[in-house]
């Protein structure tokens, strides 16, 4: 990518998404934008880059979305939430009918859109008041967790993924920002946590969301983290990864829940903690 193109892209991302694109990420940026270029009929990504000098709005949105792939948005990948609502939740409400307790852990919560989306979904599902459903949300970034706990989002951030009725029902306007309602905010507990640290503090979770967190993990780190997730997950619980993520042989602890449900896993019968060999 030539320097002018990079500067133009970096400036665009800074202005539109407050995102700092490091020069070392130029190659990654180019590969992220290749599908966007194809979608708009450009034979080369460079041609798309040239358009960024004076881009149509549709290009800007597509470019920002492709670049911010690790950024969070409300109800991101709607199919995942539909599966949670339609399959996972009924299954667990039935399985936990005795204790009437559920714990959901968002392990890569970023700026909070994912746990708040789950909270909104639960609120609208009108589950009986005698249930105790806990949503714990963690992220490696303390800045992200602070933003998440505040629950205040720009108009750009609430625009995508939120039907207007949902927006008006669960958010209040705050200057040119939107603040999540206290009712929803109260449903989530936020804490800073690095997935490479010890998992002991959490106890057991019935559902773990860990979407698109492994993108930058080395294979060994991914394996260690999946072991931790397996230790934390209830035996009949669900692990939700990003729709395009797989185990890639990193763990035998999980099996796909359904051939068509991408990214959703259960614990396999072979989920055993590796035993340290005596030296």
């Amino acid at each position, binding site marked *: 990518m030539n320097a002018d193109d990079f500067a133009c892209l970096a400036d665009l991302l800074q202005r539109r998404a407050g995102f700092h694109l490091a020069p070392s990420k130029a190659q990654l940026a180019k590969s992220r934008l290749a599908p966007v270029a194809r979608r708009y009929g450009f034979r080369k990504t460079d041609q798309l880059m040239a358009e960024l000098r004076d881009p149509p709005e549709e290009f800007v949105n597509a470019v920002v979305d492709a670049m911010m792939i690790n950024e969070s948005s409300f109800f991101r990948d709607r199919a995942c939430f539909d599966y949670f609502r339609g399959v996972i939740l009924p299954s667990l409400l039935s399985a936990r009918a005795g204790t009437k307790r559920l714990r959901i852990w968002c392990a890569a919560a970023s700026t909070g859109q994912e746990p708040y989306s789950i909270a909104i979904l639960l609120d609208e599902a009108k589950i009986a008041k005698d249930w105790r459903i806990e949503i714990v949300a963690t992220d490696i970034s303390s800045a992200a967790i602070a933003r998440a706990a505040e629950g205040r989002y720009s108009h750009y951030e609430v625009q995508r993924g939120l039907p207007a009725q949902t*927006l008006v029902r669960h958010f209040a306007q705050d200057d040119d920002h939107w603040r999540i309602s206290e009712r929803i905010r109260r449903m989530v507990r936020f804490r800073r946590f690095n997935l490479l640290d010890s998992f002991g503090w959490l106890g057991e979770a019935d559902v773990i969301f860990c979407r698109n967190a492994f993108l930058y993990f080395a294979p060994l780190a991914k394996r260690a983290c999946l072991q931790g997730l397996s230790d934390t997950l209830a035996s009949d619980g669900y692990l939700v990864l990003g729709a395009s993520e797989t185990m890639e042989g990193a763990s035998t602890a999980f099996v796909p829940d359904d051939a068509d449900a991408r990214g959703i896993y259960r614990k396999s019968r072979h989920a055993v903690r590796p035993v340290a060999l005596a030296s």
Partner: protein
Amino acid sequence: MKHCLVVDESRVIRKVVSGLLEDMKFYAEEAAESRSALDACRTQMPDLVLVNLANAGGIELVRALRRTDGAKQPVIIGTVTEHDVGNIVEAIRAGADEYVQKPFGRECLTQAFAHSGLM
């Protein structure tokens, strides 16, 4: 073919949006302000009304349409710019289904249609 009414003071905007909707296989009609928009709706209620919420009478048009008796209610989508997002809450409470922010394209409209059950 679905029928849409585009309500905006600006002739340029009406033309651009009508063109976009025609590309999306709508039959598009235009109105410059809420009174002629209401008249058009009384003649034949469209499937979709796209109304600029910042224009005088925009939100009142939403209320008037929702008060209209008769079998068919249109999907109402308000258009806003980044400077007048304050209209969104009022418009939704007045009965609008969705909003789109200018400049909007096909992708944005498609998402708004999906959220409001138009397609």
